[in-house]
């Protein structure tokens, strides 16, 4: 174990190799992008509710600008908010601390990972400045549209590279290189740097889930990158990989995209479930119910995630017989998730539940994710998907999976580990207010969309006035309510910002273990110094020994105490 020296300003705050600081860099960058992505959503929802509104800084949205905003909203929320916060930010913070390690296995690789991510963010921003503006062909980037839009086949390749679509593809590819480096670190650290005595089943669920997510990501990203490179070549070198007139096949891209795209959902979802699996036992003062089986089921779901991808393509023109297979696997994936869900609920029964803000956000995740989970069955049924595909029903469904995962579980994690990261508690009152306003805004925005989706309102339409049924009064009302909900959701985040600033500067001092939690990160000081632990902790038991009758005088039993 190397000694940890005093660091200069640059090596501490900019090119930091400290996993905790890199985690903060990822989280803060991710939160900034989440806010930008949210504002994009408010902008295009405003156009939907009140077509022709002059939106500050953007102007009146025409079809092109509208498509640009929806495309980049999705891209940003997934790759520059969801992944950096839930995978890179959370993983970097909790993995070494929860394993009792002094840092990641490869700290310099870790630093490189963040700065490559930073480059990808710069490329993303540059893509908006390219002539013609940002990419506007949908976040799934389906060719031939996305192989053509903004491209001049006769121009030199640099001209075609300097377009929104090409730069966005490049940005995504660079971002994935960064996440791959991070992923290598996660896996190597988790396998090799666990505290003395920590068996694999003593590793906390959240670390398991982050590693499963990493495995899903690493095994699925290759096909996507190759697909993206071919798309980029179609754009800049005028190749015809996806051009049917020249022997190419547009559906090929969809397979490569979704072979990655579906596991990618689990990349965001699994860490979220892991977070909740840490928080619920802690605030219920009870062991995580059937914790071993939760890990087994999560592993199973991480594998099944690789054989469901074509459920995004039921109506894309694939051989219809394939849909039968993918429909079955998709619906069966509800089984492992139902198990985990039931087990987390069972964890709370006969506990002593204290609803502090982290627990409140975790409960919010459970309630709202349940809506997203059950509505997934509708979309996964090929026989029904041929109607609801690409309608607002699907939009509502995935916002009920991703917002609970990224927002609710992510904020649960933020409130839970904030005291460890900064040494100060977050403000409970502000936190609860923020929770309730966020919940109201979110449900106002997402829930009505189920109904307009069932009615057949299809997505990515900048102005519904061409469609008579979509101009019915109740549909217009739904668009108003959803837009106001989105505005409330965005505005509520100001409370979070205030809470973070106030708490980080003048919050109550946290001490080492404010939540009376068992896992090893609570053994370190708050905030932990560079190098984390004064003496490397040993591990004697699993992480969920709450209210164990063998332990007298305390309702928790830290992993490092004999």
């Amino acid at each position, binding site marked *: 174990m190397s000694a940890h020296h005093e660091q200069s300003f640059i090596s501490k705050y900019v090119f930091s190799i400290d996993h905790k600081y890199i985690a903060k860099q990822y989280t803060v960058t991710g939160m900034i992008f989440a806010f930008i992505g949210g504002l994009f959503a408010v902008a295009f929802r405003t156009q939907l509710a009140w077509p022709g509104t002059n939106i500050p800084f953007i102007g009146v949205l025409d*079809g092109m600008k509208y498509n640009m905003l929806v495309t980049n909203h999705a891209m940003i929320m997934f790759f520059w908010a969801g992944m950096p916060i839930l995978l890179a930010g959370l993983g970097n913070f909790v993995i070494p601390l929860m394993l009792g390690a002094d840092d990641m296995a490869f700290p310099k690789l870790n630093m490189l990972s963040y700065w490559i991510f930073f480059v990808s963010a710069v490329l993303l921003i540059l893509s908006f400045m390219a002539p013609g503006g940002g990419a506007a062909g949908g976040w799934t980037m*389906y060719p031939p549209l996305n192989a053509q839009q903004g491209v001049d086949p006769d121009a030199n390749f640099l001209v075609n590279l300097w377009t929104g679509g090409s730069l966005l593809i490049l940005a995504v590819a660079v971002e994935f290189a960064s996440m791959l480096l991070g992923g290598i670190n996660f896996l190597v650290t988790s396998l090799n740097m666990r505290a003395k005595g920590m068996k694999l089943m003593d590793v906390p669920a959240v670390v398991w889930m982050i590693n499963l997510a990493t495995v899903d990501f690493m095994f699925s990203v290759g096909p996507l990158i190759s697909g993206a490179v071919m798309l980029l070549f179609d754009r800049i070198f005028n190749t015809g990989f996806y051009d049917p007139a020249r022997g190419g096949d547009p559906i090929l891209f969809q397979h490569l995209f979704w072979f990655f795209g579906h596991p990618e959902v689990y990349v965001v979802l699994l860490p979220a479930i892991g977070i909740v699996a840490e928080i619920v036992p802690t605030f219920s003062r*009870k062991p995580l119910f*059937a914790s071993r089986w939760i890990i087994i089921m999560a592993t199973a779901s991480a594998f099944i995630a690789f054989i469901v991808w074509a459920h995004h393509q039921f109506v894309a023109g694939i051989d219809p017989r394939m849909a039968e297979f993918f429909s079955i696997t998709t619906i069966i994936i509800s089984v492992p998730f139902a198990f985990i869900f039931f087990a987390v609920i069972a964890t709370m029964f006969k*506990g002593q539940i204290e609803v502090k803000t982290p627990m409140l956000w975790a409960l919010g995740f459970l309630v709202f994710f*349940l809506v997203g989970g059950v509505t997934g069955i509708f979309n996964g049924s090929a*026989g*029904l998907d041929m109607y609801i595909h*690409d309608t607002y029903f699907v939009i509502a469904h995935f916002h009920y999976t991703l917002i609970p995962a990224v927002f609710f579980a992510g904020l649960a994690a933020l409130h839970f580990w904030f005291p460890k990261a900064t040494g100060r508690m977050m403000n409970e009152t502000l936190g609860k207010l923020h929770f309730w306003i966020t919940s109201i805004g979110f449900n106002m925005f997402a829930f009505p969309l189920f109904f307009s989706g069932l009615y057949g309102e299809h997505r990515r339409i900048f102005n519904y006035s061409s469609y008579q049924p979509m101009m019915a009064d109740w549909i217009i009302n739904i668009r108003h309510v959803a837009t106001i909900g989105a505005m409330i959701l965005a505005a509520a985040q100001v409370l979070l910002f205030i809470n973070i600033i106030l708490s980080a500067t003048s919050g109550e001092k946290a001490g080492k273990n404010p939540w009376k939690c068992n896992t090893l990160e609570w053994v370190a000081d708050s905030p932990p110094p560079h190098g984390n632990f004064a003496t490397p902790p040993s591990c004697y038991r699993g992480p969920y020994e709450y209210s164990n009758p063998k332990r007298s005088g305390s309702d928790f039993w830290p992993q490092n105490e004999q």
Partner: protein
Amino acid sequence: MSFLPEAYSSVAADIYGVFYLIFYIVGIWFVVTLGALFYGVFTSLKKQGGKAQYITGDDWAQSKWIWIPLILVFMCDLLIDVKTANVWTKVEIAEKMPQNDYDVKIVGRQFQWEFTYPGPDGKLFTEDDIQIADGNDGELVLPVGKITKLHLTAADVLHSFFVREFGFKQDVIPGRILTRWVEPIKEGRIELTCAEICGPNHGTMRNWVKVVSQEEFNSFIKNLNSGKKVAMATK
């Protein structure tokens, strides 16, 4: 649920049937699970001097409380799988496609739909085919109660053939012709939209489907063949 549009095709009711089956099954699960969640939370709130029970869920006596519901979930999944596969097979699988009465070719093009009917020889994909390309006013005219085979393709980028009252959509792909079928069960004029983003004016890519009686359809075809700019196709 009245949110689903009125059915204009023979398969829409089957497709909606999948919706209702799933709705009732997952509706019950949703209510039960949410009930258990809230019951668990509100009966287990922290009490002064209270003590949490040490329940690990490792033995069957405890874990049966989630294994048994899980088996039920699995059985419900299978039920849904069977139902959805049946409907999918009926609508989409080529071998199950019923014998058709008419053919029409449908082309998606930025940003309109175009329709091609067989010419005087009554066969599609021959020299004398007649195309209707009327911008966004073009109508796909179909006879009620008869089965029409739809030969779907695209001219430039991906589009998606979506008539909400028919209950299904189908992406169309340049360079490929996909075959689907429809049997309209109700006369009327409904919207044909594009459900796959296809460029800046994707949001205005709307044409019409006009379901007419057999007599009207016959005269439409007759007018089409005699080269008259069909009066009824425009309004």
